[in-house]
C-alpha cells in the first residue's frame, strides 16, 4: 500500500491509494479457510469412526440397522438441494430477485427433507435401543452424522435469514457476498455427505 502525497493549492495533503482494497476477495478466501478448518473437524470424526466403527459391544451392526433405501433418498435430497442452490446463484448473476428467491426456497425444501429423514432415522435407531450409548460404533456414528446434520441445520437457518434479507433489501453487494459464502458452505456439506454415505453407510453395511 503506497500512498502518494499531492500538494494542493490550499496546502492540504491529499492521499491517493494506488491499490484498492479487495473486501470481497478476502472474504471468499477467509471463508474457504474456515471450510478447510471445518474439514479437519470432520476428518477427526471420520478417523474416530474408522477406529471405533467395528466395536459393536455385542450390539447391532450397521447391516442390522441401516436402511440403504432411506440413505439413498437422503443422498438424493442433498444432491438436489446442491443443484438448486447452483440455479439460485445463476439467477443471482442475472440479477433476477424473484427467481433467486424461488430457487433458494426449493433448496430449503430439499434441505428440510434431508433433515427430516435424518431425524426420522435417528428417532428409529434410538427407539430400537440403538442409541449413542449402545456401543462405541453407535457413539461415533451419532457424533459424525449428527455433526453433519447440525451443520445442515445451521445452513438452513442461514438460508432462511438470507431469503428474508434478499426479500427486504434486494440483491445488493452485501447479500451477494453472503449468498456466495452460503453457496460454498452448502456445496461443502454435500462433499462431506459423500464421505458419510460411502464410508459410514455403504462400507458399514458391507461389513
Amino acid at each position, binding site marked *: 500500500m503506497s500512498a502518494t502525497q499531492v500538494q494542493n493549492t490550499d496546502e492540504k495533503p491529499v492521499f*491517493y491509494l494506488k491499490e*484498492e482494497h*479487495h473486501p*470481497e*476477495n478476502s472474504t*471468499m*478466501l477467509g*471463508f*474457504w*479457510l474456515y471450510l*478447510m478448518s471445518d*474439514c*479437519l473437524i470432520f*476428518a*477427526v470424526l*471420520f*478417523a*474416530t469412526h*474408522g*477406529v471405533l466403527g467395528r466395536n459393536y459391544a455385542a450390539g447391532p451392526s450397521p447391516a442390522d440397522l441401516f436402511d*440403504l*433405501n432411506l*440413505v*439413498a433418498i437422503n*443422498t*438424493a435430497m442433498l*444432491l438436489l438441494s*446442491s*443443484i438448486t442452490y*447452483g*440455479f439460485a*446463484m*445463476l439467477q443471482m*448473476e442475472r440479477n433476477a430477485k424473484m427467481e433467486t428467491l424461488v430457487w433458494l426456497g426449493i433448496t430449503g425444501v430439499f434441505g428440510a427433507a434431508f433433515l427430516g429423514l435424518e431425524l426420522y432415522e435417528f428417532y428409529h435407531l434410538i427407539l430400537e435401543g440403538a442409541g449413542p450409548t449402545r456401543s462405541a460404533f453407535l457413539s461415533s456414528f451419532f457424533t459424525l452424522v449428527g455433526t453433519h446434520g447440525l451443520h445442515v441445520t445451521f445452513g438452513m437457518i442461514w438460508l432462511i435469514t438470507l431469503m428474508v434479507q434478499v426479500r427486504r433489501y434486494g440483491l445488493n453487494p452485501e447479500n451477494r457476498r453472503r449468498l*456466495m*459464502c452460503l*453457496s*460454498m458452505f452448502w*456445496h*461443502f456439506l*454435500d*462433499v462431506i455427505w*459423500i*464421505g458419510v*454415505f*460411502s*464410508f459410514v453407510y*455403504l*462400507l458399514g*453395511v*458391507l*461389513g
Partner: protein
Amino acid sequence: MSAHPTHESAHDTHHAHSHGAGAGHGSFKGYMTGFVLSIILTAIPFWLVMGEVLDSKLFTAVLVMGLAVVQIVVHMVYFLHMNTRSEGGWTLMALIFTLIIVGIAIAGSLWVMHHLNTNMMPMTHEMMKNMP
C-alpha cells in the same frame, strides 16, 4: 493522473469476473454436468452394495471409496469451482495443506489403533476374571 480513471475502470471490469475462492461463477452447463456425473457416481456404489454385485467385499469397498474420491473431485470442480487460478492459487494451496493433514489424521489414527489392537496381549477368560 489522467490515466488513473481508465486504470480504475479496467480494474473494475477485471474485478467483476474474478470472485475467486470457489465462489467463481458457474454456468448452467457446468452445474448440469456436475449434477449428472454426481448421480452416476452415487448410483454405482449404492448399486454395488445393495445389489451385492461383486463377490469380493474388499474389491467392492475399494471401488466404493474410489468412486467417492472421484465424486468429491467432481463436486470441487463443478459446484465449488475450484481451480488453480482462484485467489492466485491460495485456495488450492489451503486445500492441499488440508488434504495432507486429513490424510495424516485418518491414516495415522487407523494405523496406530490397528497396531494397538493386534499387539495387545491376548486375554483369556481367567485373566479377565482377575482384572482389577
